[in-house]
C-alpha cells in the first residue's frame, strides 16, 4: 500500500484515513478500522464514530498527530491514526 502523508490533498468525498487531514481541517469520524481491543481503547478516549476532529499539529518525520476531539486533545501515532476513517466536512 502506498502511504500518503499528512498534507496530501484529497478531493475524494469518501471515507479517508485521519492522516489525510491537513492541520486546521475539520472532519467527522465515520469508522474505526482497528481490532476490537484497539477500537475500545479509541472509543474510551473519545475517538468514536460521529465525533468531530480537528488536526491541531503534526510532528515532523512521521511523528504523531495532535488532534482535538470535541474539546479533548489527543496525541496519536500515525499508524493508529490511519485506522481512524474520517469524512471531511
Amino acid at each position, binding site marked *: 500500500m502506498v502511504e500518503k502523508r499528512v498534507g496530501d490533498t484529497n478531493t475524494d468525498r469518501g471515507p479517508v484515513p485521519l492522516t489525510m487531514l491537513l492541520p486546521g481541517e475539520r472532519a467527522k469520524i465515520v469508522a474505526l478500522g482497528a481490532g*476490537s*481491543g484497539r477500537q*475500545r*481503547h479509541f*472509543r*474510551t*478516549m*473519545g475517538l*468514536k464514530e460521529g465525533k468531530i476532529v480537528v488536526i*491541531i*499539529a*503534526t*510532528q*515532523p*518525520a*512521521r*511523528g*504523531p498527530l*495532535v488532534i482535538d476531539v470535541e*474539546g*479533548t*486533545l*489527543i*496525541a*496519536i*501515532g*500515525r*499508524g*493508529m491514526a490511519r485506522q481512524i476513517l474520517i469524512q471531511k466536512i
Partner: protein
Amino acid sequence: MKKITLMGCPNVGKSVVFSRLTGVNVISSNYPGTTVDFIKGTTFIGGEKFELIDVPGTYSLEPTSKAEAVAQTMLHEGDIVITVVDATHLERNLYLTLEILETKKPAVIALNMWDETRHLGIDIDVTKLERVLGVPIVPTCAICGTGIKELSSAVGDAQQSKTLKQMSEEERWLKVGEIIRDVQVVHHRHHTIWERFADTTVRPTTGIPLAILVILLMFLFIIEVGNVIIDYLMDPLFYTYYGPWIVGAVNSFVPSGLLHDLLVGTSTIESLDFEQSLGLLTTGFYIPFGIVLPFVITFYFMLSILEDIGYLPRLAVLVDTGLHKLGLHGSAIVPTILGCGCNVPGALATRILETEKQRFIAMTLMAISIPCMAQSAMIFAILGRYGMKWILIVYSTLLVLYILLGLLLKRIVKGESPELLLEVPPYRKPDPRTLLKKTWSKAYGFLAEAVPFVIVGIFIVNLLSVSGMIDILARIFSPILTTVLGLPEGAIAALLLGILRKDIAIGMLLPLGMTPQQLTISCIILTTYFPCIATFVVLFRELGSLALLKAAGLMAVVSLSVGIIMRVILIGI
C-alpha cells in the same frame, strides 16, 4: 474495616479526592498516569472507620498497561467503589462507569471538575443521571473542596445499581450515547485566545524551541538557586552555628578516641571540615542537608510547576519521534524526568508504558544514564568549583550514552514498541499551596530515605578504614582503577559506597585530591556502573531477576568502556 476503592479514568482527580478524604497528601499532577500503584489510607465516615484506596486511572476494565492492570485488580478488593468522573468529559467517562456499576459493587459517583463545566458551557442534569445510573451522584470540585463533605456522607448511601443490567460492549456504547442525549447539553463556544496560544506549544516549529528553552532554564535555575541556598543559608548555618556547637558538644563528652572520630571525624572547632572529615554528625549531616537538600527542593519545585501546569504530556508529544528511535515512545519522557529526581519513582512510572520491551529499555537507560538529584547535587557542588564546563561534560556524556544505548537496545530487545496514544489535558493554573505541599512532601521523602542511608554509609567507611579493609580492597582493584581508568586507588571506597547511595559516594571522592578530569571520569562511572540499592530493589521487583541480570551486565560493560574512553579523551593514554 470496610474498603473503599477510588476508581476512574486517568487524570480525573482521584488522588486529590483521596487527599481530601484521608488528609494524607498523595501526589497528584496534571497528566494521565500520575498514580501507578495503589495507595491506602483511612477515613471516617459517619463515625465509622473505612480504608480508602487510591488507584491508578484506567479507561476501561480491560487494561492496556501495567498501571491499568493494578486498577482492574483493585476494583475487586473494595467493598464500596467511589467512581470519580470528569464532568467535563462525561461521555468518555461513562463507559468505565457503566462497567464498574455492572459489577454490582455498591457505588457512589463523584462528578468531579464541576467547577470547570460552567465556562466550558456544559450542563448536566444530575438528578436525571442519578435516576438512570441508580447510584448516588455528588458534584465535586476536589481542588477547592466543594462537595467533598456531601460525597463522604453519600458513601453511607452507596448502593448497587438496580437500573443497569450486564451489557455487551456494543450495548454499553449505545447506552452511553442514550444517557448523554438525555442528561447533557453542551452550549457551543468559540476557542479562547488562550487556547489558541496553548496549541502553539505542541506545534513543532514553536513547541520545540520552547521545550529546549524550558529544559535549559530549568537546569540553570536548579543549579543557580541551589547554589544560592547553599552559600547564603546552609553554609552559614553549618559553619557558624551547627559546626562549633556539635564539635564542642562531642569534645566535652568524648574528647578523643574511636567514638570521637566516628562522630565528628577530623573536624575541630578551629578547622571545621564538613565535606571531608567523615564524621557521622559532620559529613553525615552536611551532605544530605547542606548540599543535596537545596538542589532537591529547587528541582521538585520546578518539576511540580511543570507537572501541575500540564506541560509534561506536551513534551511527550514533541519528543515522541526521537524516543521511537530508542524503542520507546513520548510517554517515556515522564519516567525519565521523574528519574532525574529519584530513580525509584522513575522506575515505577514506567508502568504507564504498554509493553515489557519499552519498560525494560526505559528502566535500563534510566539506571545507566540518569543521575538522581542527590547525585546531581553532589556533581553540581563538587565539579561546579572547576567551572560549568565539567558539569556539561558529565551530562553530555550521559546524554550521548542514553541515545547510543537506546539505539542498540531497540534493536536487540525482543518485543514490541507501540505508538503513542496519549490524552493531553488542558493547561491548568497551579495552586501555590499545592505546589509547596508537593515540593515539601518530595523533599521530606528524600530526607527520610537519604539521612539513614548516608549515616550507615559513613559508618561503613569508618569501619572499612579502621579495620584496614579499604587498603586491601584498594590494592586488589588498583589495576583497574589506576592503570585502566587513571584514577587513584582510593576511589574504590566511593565505588563501594555508590552501591548504597550515590551522593555520599561522590562525597568520598573529595579527600582523594583528584584533578577535575579524574573527578569527571569518576562521576560518570559512579552514575553508570550500578544503581543504588533502593533502585536495584525496585528494578528487581519490576523487571524480575533475569532481565535485571541482563541490565546489570550491560551496566558493567558500559561503565567500564565509557570510563576508558573518557580517560583517553580527558587524560590521554
